[in-house]
C-alpha cells in the first residue's frame, strides 16, 4: 500500500538566487515555504544542517539585501488575509505576518478600515512592515508602523513563541520593530486600524517652483493634514533646483464624495494596469527619458489644485499600478538612496540635493518628506528631520563614489540611512547613524546566542557576526 499524499503539497525546498527589488547583488539560498504549523520545526531542521542561518522573506520589496541569506535558508511564511480578526470596539486587527497589505486592504477597506501606516507600495507583508518599521505619508503626525503594533507573536531561536508588546518584554519588542528579521520570525500581530468613511482621499496639491518654496510649504502646511509628501524633479537645475509637487491628503468623508460615489463609498479596486515584460534588455530609464518625463509631469500640474478626489491606490500606491516596474531599469538594476537629515541641518539637505542634481544621476522617483517623533526602537529609521528618497540605475558612472561622499555629508549632519533601502553603505555608517546599535545587538544576542537568524544585510552592515 502506498503512502497517502501529504495534506498540503508544498513545493520542495529549492536553491534559488535572490535579490532585492533593485535586482542587484544576488545570493543563493534554500527557499522553503512554511506556515504557522510547520515554521518552528523547519527552522530547527535548517539550523541543525548549516551555520548560515535562517531568514524570513516577505515579498522582497526591500531594495537591497535585507531579505536574502546567501548559503542559508530563506522562509516564506504563508498568510491568509481573510483570516484577519477585527475588533470593532478597539479598532484593532489580529493578522498573520505572512499576509500582504495588498490582500489585507481588499478585506478591510470594504469594511471601513485602513492600515495605520502604509508605505509607497502595498506589496509588502505585515512581517516586512514590522521588520523594516515602515513609515508613510502620515509619519509627521502618527509615527511609523511599529507605533501601531499592540502586540506580536515572535518565534524565537530556541523554538518557543513569545508574545511581546511595549509592556511585555519591551526590549525584545522594540528590538524586533525595525530589527530586519534578526530577532526571530514574527508569526502574527495585533495592530491598530484607522476607521474610514470612504475609500477615497481628498488631496490638495501645490506645485513649488524651487526647493525653498516646497520646504516652506511643507513646514507650514504638513501639520494641517494627516498625509503629506513631496515629489521632487531632480533633473531640474539652477533656479529650478528642487521644483516639486506637494500633495497633502486626508481620507475623504461621505459628504465629500459625489452623490454617485456615495452609493458605494467603500468600493476598493486595486489592480495592475500593465506588466513590464521580463525581457527588458536596454534600460528605458536614462537621463534623456527621465528628463522628458519630468518636464511634462512637473509642467502639467497646475500651480494649485484643491480638494481633488483620488482613490487609495492613486494617492498611496501609484507605482503599484505597473507590475514589476523595477524591470524598466534593465539588467543592471538600480539602487535606492534614502537618508534622514535632522531639522536644523537644512543646509546639508540642500547640498545633497544640489550634488545629486548636478551629478546628472537620473532619478525617476524622488520623494521628500518631513518626519515627526521617533519611537523607542533602537534600529528604527525615522526621527525628526527631512527624509529624501531617490532611485538611480546601478550602472550610472561614478554613482558609488558619489553616494559614499554624500554619506559623509549626511552622517556629519547627524543623519542616517534606511536599511530597508540600503544597498551600498558601510558598517561604519550604520554605527554612526544608529548610536543604539550595540544596545540592539545585546538584545538580539540574548535571544539568539547561536546566530540562528542571519541575513546578507546583517552580515554586510555588521549588525550580526
Amino acid at each position, binding site marked *: 500500500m502506498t503512502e497517502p499524499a501529504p495534506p498540503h503539497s508544498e513545493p520542495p525546498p529549492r536553491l534559488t538566487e535572490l535579490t532585492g527589488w533593485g535586482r542587484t547583488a544576488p545570493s543563493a539560498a534554500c527557499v522553503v515555504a512554511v506556515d504557522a504549523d510547520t515554521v518552528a520545526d523547519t527552522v530547527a531542521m535548517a539550523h541543525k544542517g548549516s551555520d*548560515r542561518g535562517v531568514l524570513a522573506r516577505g515579498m522582497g520589496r526591500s531594495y537591497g539585501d535585507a531579505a536574502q541569506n546567501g548559503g542559508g535558508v530563506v522562509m516564506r511564511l504563508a498568510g491568509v488575509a481573510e483570516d484577519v480578526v477585527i475588533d470593532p470596539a478597539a479598532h484593532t486587527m489580529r493578522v498573520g505576518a505572512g499576509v500582504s497589505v495588498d490582500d489585507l486592504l481588499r478585506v478591510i477597506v470594504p469594511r471601513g478600515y485602513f492600515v495605520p501606516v502604509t508605505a509607497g507600495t502595498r506589496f509588502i507583508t505585515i512581517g516586512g512592515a514590522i521588520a523594516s518599521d515602515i513609515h508613510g505619508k502620515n509619519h509627521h503626525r502618527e509615527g511609523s508602523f511599529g507605533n501601531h503594533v499592540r502586540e506580536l507573536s515572535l518565534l524565537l531561536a530556541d523554538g518557543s513563541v513569545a508574545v511581546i508588546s511595549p509592556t511585555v518584554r519591551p526590549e525584545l519588542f522594540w528590538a524586533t520593530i525595525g530589527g530586519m528579521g534578526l530577532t526571530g520570525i514574527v508569526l502574527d500581530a495585533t495592530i491598530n486600524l484607522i476607521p474610514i468613511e470612504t475609500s477615497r482621499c481628498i488631496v490638495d496639491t501645490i506645485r513649488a517652483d524651487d526647493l525653498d518654496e516646497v520646504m516652506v510649504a511643507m513646514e507650514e502646511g504638513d501639520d494641517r493634514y494627516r498625509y503629506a509628501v513631496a515629489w521632487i524633479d531632480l533633473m531640474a537645475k539652477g533656479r529650478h533646483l528642487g521644483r516639486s509637487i506637494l500633495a497633502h491628503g486626508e481620507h475623504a468623508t461621505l459628504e465629500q464624495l459625489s452623490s454617485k460615489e456615495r452609493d458605494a463609498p467603500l468600493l476598493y479596486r486595486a489592480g495592475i494596469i500593465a506588466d513590464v515584460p521580463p525581457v527588458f534588455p536596454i534600460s528605458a530609464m536614462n537621463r534623456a527619458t527621465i528628463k522628458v518625463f519630468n518636464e511634462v509631469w512637473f509642467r502639467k500640474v497646475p500651480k494649485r489644485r484643491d480638494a481633488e478626489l483620488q482613490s487609495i491606490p492613486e494617492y498611496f500606491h501609484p507605482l503599484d499600478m505597473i507590475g514589476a516596474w523595477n524591470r524598466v531599469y534593465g539588467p543592471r538594476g538600480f539602487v535606492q538612496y534614502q537618508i534622514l537629515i535632522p531639522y536644523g541641518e537644512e543646509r546639508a539637505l540642500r547640498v545633497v540635493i544640489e550634488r545629486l542634481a548636478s551629478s546628472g544621476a537620473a532619478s525617476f522617483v524622488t520623494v521628500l518628506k518631513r518626519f515627526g517623533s521617533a519611537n523607542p526602537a533602537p534600529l528604527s529609521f525615522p526621527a525628526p528631520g527631512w527624509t529624501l528618497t531617490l532611485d538611480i540605475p546601478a550602472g550610472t558612472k561614478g554613482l558609488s563614489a558619489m553616494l559614499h561622499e554624500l554619506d559623509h555629508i549626511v552622517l556629519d549632519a547627524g543623519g542616517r540611512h534606511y536599511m530597508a533601502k540600503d544597498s551600498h553603505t558601510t558598517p561604519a555608517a550604520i554605527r554612526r547613524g544608529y548610536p543604539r546599535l550595540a544596545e540592539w545587538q545585546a538584545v538580539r544576542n540574548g535571544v539568539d546566542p547561536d546566530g540562528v537568524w542571519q541575513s546578507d544585510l546583517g552580515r554586510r552592515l555588521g549588525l550580526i557576526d
Partner: protein
Amino acid sequence: MQNSFGEPQTVLLLGGTSDIGVAIVRRLVTPTLQKVVLACRNPADASASIAELGVDGVSATAVAFDATDSARHAAFVDDVVAEVGDLDVVVMAFGVLGEQADFDDDPAAAASAVTVNYTGAVSIGLAVASQLRRQGHGHLVVLSSVAGERVRASNFVYGSSKAGLDGFAQGLGDSLVGSGASVLVVRPGFVHSSMTEGMKPTPFASTPESVAEVTVKGLRAGRRTVWSPGILRFVFMVLRHIPGPIFRKLPLG
C-alpha cells in the same frame, strides 16, 4: 558580502606577488573594502603591497600559499575563511611563464611549471568554488591568457597550460550557474610586467593597470569572459581560423 555596486568587503589574491593581481586588488579598493589577503609562496615578498593596501581601515595580511600542494588546498581555503569570513572576490593570478627553450631540454621543469599553472589552479579553484557555493555568493577571477587561445610553438608549454586553465575556468563557471557565485575569465595578451621583463612585446600589449580596469569593469557588469585589450576578442575570432601554415609564419612572438 558585496554591495549593489559589486564592491567587495573581502578580497583574496592567490599569487600575492603578481603585478596584475595586485593591480586588480588596487582597483577593488573602495570605502566598502575591509579585508585583503595576499597569498603567495613567501609571504614576506608581499610586504610592500601589504603596506600599501593596509590603510584607511583596510586590514591587509599575507599568508603562505603553495600552488603545487594540492592536498592542502581545501584546508587552506577553510583557514582563510576562518580568519576573514566570506570571500567576496578571489583572484587567481599565480603562474609560471618560464622559457620554452629551457622546457625543451628539461621535461621535469616543464611538468613543474604546468603543475603550478594548471593542476594547482584546478585544486585551489575547486576548493574556492566549494566555499563560494557554501556562501551562496562570490566571484572567482581567473587570469587566463591569449597564449592558450591558439597555442604557438614559441611557448607551447605555457600556452597549453593556459589552454587547460581556460577550459577549467569556463566549465567551473558553468557549473556555478544558479549558485549565486560566478567565474570571470580574463584573457590578457602580452602584459608589461615583472614576469615579462626583458621580453619583446607582441602586438596588442597592455599593462597590469589596464588589465585590472577591464577586469573590474567586467566584474561589475556580470561578464563571463573579458579580454585585455578588448580588441583581442575580435583578433582571435579571426586568428582561430587562419590555416596552420599561415599561422605558423605570423610574427606573434
